[in-house]
């Protein structure tokens, strides 16, 4: 019934009722066949071309309610209703020809009239059905557009808030970082002047490296020192944290215990400054990634090949992947109307994530595979790594903010990254899935196209 092609029935109807060459109208593009309130006693059938019906809202803005091509009936309402008044505007969208019958030509009670009423009914019902279908589709589209808008607004609001927050935090972090550097310089001067027992190098070790041993390694080293130099648990722990070798400790000989407090004092002073610098650097990185989110929401969508956004992302994270084997299997993709920076951000996060996972295994065979293909109305992009895999208990909440998978040191890991990725993917009605086991982790992004 939805088919715009003429069925046998409409062909028959046309032949039977709409074939009088004297009851034909030729319309140019833009010609008005009917307008609201117009008196009408004709029932039209489109012979050629396309007619579009619309109603206007209070501000005079037209809303399309039907489009009728060859074989379709137009003017049914005003023809059949008691008042014979049209409720819509009907305009030819292209040069069109319509045939019609006059109400006055139908003699009431005659067999011919009876025949007309019976035969025209399915065509009219078909017409009503099509209009209703179009109304439903419009409602659904409008609802979807509204949801999309709400999502975009939410994301934009979040982005603006993030940008504002990022600006404020950057100022604060800047002050902390610069002052920590200043303080480190002053402390260096002060402690090197004050130093009388060769303690100053321990300050520098603390400032340059901080604590390099893990807490478990400190515990083990602590036990070693305790038995080797006959120290108390506390002394050996403080000494263990400095990471100073046995050879460097031997020079204190039997006096080592009485020096430990000084060694620790110098080391810890440097270590505290090192931690401050590290922490402010970490905070600056977090802020930068939040800022990206803010910036990405301001650009209008444009036709984009997602393969190019992958290449863009790879350019940005080049230094992360240069020691790895990179396998690109990019298929032909249709253009998608998107904000390209959104997708660059998605791939940056996923590639960064994969690179960090692979690097953490310290294997020389680190490999990242990126695949893209288009199939059955869907673009599918996969980022795969051969890292250690994501722990089972983490999988279910991997897309929540604040979840980290960092293995060591100050990597920001998945913190905010994956929650942002998921938000962006959802904005485009896409899905993101995770499959992970030791040696193979794949993030699969699917976007309707």
């Amino acid at each position, binding site marked *: 019934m939805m088919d715009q092609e003429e069925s046998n029935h409409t062909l028959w109807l046309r032949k039977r009722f709409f074939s009088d060459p004297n009851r034909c109208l030729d319309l140019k593009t833009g010609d008005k066949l009917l307008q609201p309130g117009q008196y009408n006693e004709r029932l039209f059938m489109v012979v050629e071309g396309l007619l579009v019906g619309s109603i206007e809202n209070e501000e005079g803005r037209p809303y399309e309610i039907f489009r009728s091509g060859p074989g379709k009936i137009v003017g049914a309402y005003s023809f059949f209703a008691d008042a014979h008044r049209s409720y819509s505007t009907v305009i030819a969208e292209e040069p069109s020809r319509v045939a019609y019958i006059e109400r006055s030509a139908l003699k009431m009670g005659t067999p011919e009239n009876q025949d007309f009423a019976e035969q025209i009914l399915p065509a009219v019902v078909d017409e009503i059905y099509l209009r209703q279908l179009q109304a439903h589709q419009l409602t659904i589209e409008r609802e979807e557009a509204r949801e999309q808008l709400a999502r975009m607004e939410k994301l934009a609001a979040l982005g603006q808030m993030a940008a504002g927050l990022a600006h404020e935090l950057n100022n604060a972090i800047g002050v902390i970082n610069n002052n920590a550097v200043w303080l480190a310089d002053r402390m260096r001067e002060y402690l090197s002047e004050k130093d009388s027992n060769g303690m100053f190098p321990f300050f520098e070790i603390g400032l340059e490296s901080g604590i390099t041993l893990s807490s478990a390694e400190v515990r083990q080293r602590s036990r070693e020192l305790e038995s080797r130099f006959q120290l108390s648990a506390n002394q050996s722990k403080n000494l263990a944290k400095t990471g100073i070798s046995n050879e460097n400790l031997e020079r204190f000989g039997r006096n080592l215990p009485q020096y430990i407090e000084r060694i620790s004092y110098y080391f810890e002073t440097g*270590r505290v400054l090192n931690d401050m610098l590290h922490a402010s650097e970490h905070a600056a990185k977090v802020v930068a990634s939040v800022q990206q989110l803010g910036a990405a929401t301001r650009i209008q969508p444009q036709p984009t090949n997602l393969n190019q956004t992958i290449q863009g992302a790879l350019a940005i994270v080049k230094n992360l992947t240069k020691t790895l084997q990179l396998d690109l299997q990019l298929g032909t993709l249709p253009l998608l109307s998107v904000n390209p920076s959104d997708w660059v951000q998605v791939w940056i996060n996923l590639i960064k994530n994969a690179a960090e996972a692979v690097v953490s295994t310290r294997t020389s065979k680190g490999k990242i595979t990126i695949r893209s293909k288009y199939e059955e109305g869907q673009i599918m992009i996969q980022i795969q790594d051969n890292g250690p895999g994501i722990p089972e208990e*983490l999988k279910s909440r991997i897309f929540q903010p*604040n979840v*980290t*998978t960092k293995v060591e040191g100050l990597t920001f890991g998945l913190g905010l990254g994956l929650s942002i990725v998921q938000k962006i993917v959802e904005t485009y009605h896409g899905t993101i899935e995770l499959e992970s086991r030791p040696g193979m982790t794949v993030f699969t992004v699917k976007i309707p196209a």
Partner: protein
Amino acid sequence: MEKIFLLCIEDQREVLNAVVEDLAIFEEAFPIEECESVAEAITVIEDIYDAGLHLAVVISDHVMPDKNGIDFLVELHQDERFRNTKKLLLTGLATHADTINAINNAAVDRYIAKPWDKEKLQGYVRKLLTEYILESGIDYQPYLKWMDQETLYQKLRKY
């Protein structure tokens, strides 16, 4: 004097350092174990138990890669051997559901938000240490210097 431990778990090294530094005032009497993961903490806790020593207070971070701090404290609380051990949750992320979970399971004795106030953290640990010492029937005389006078007074009145 008995050997009574404090234990801190925090996956970010800088933060762990800062917590331990703030608790340094207790270290003379209460050795502090530092752990960067829940898994590490569990082995240390087992060692303390096997050696027949005391574990007075566990200070745990909330969001960590291997296990959620609350889940860990709930498990620790359900372990008969560490019933008396006091649990303090240090968190940068206090969500409603998590808080309710922790309270319902009575797994957390204190809750402190990041960034924390040094004096407040020290005050909480002082109180929890005092409770642990008294509840475990340890001779508290040698530890008076590190105990919370008010808690001590209240508890002693009760017994």
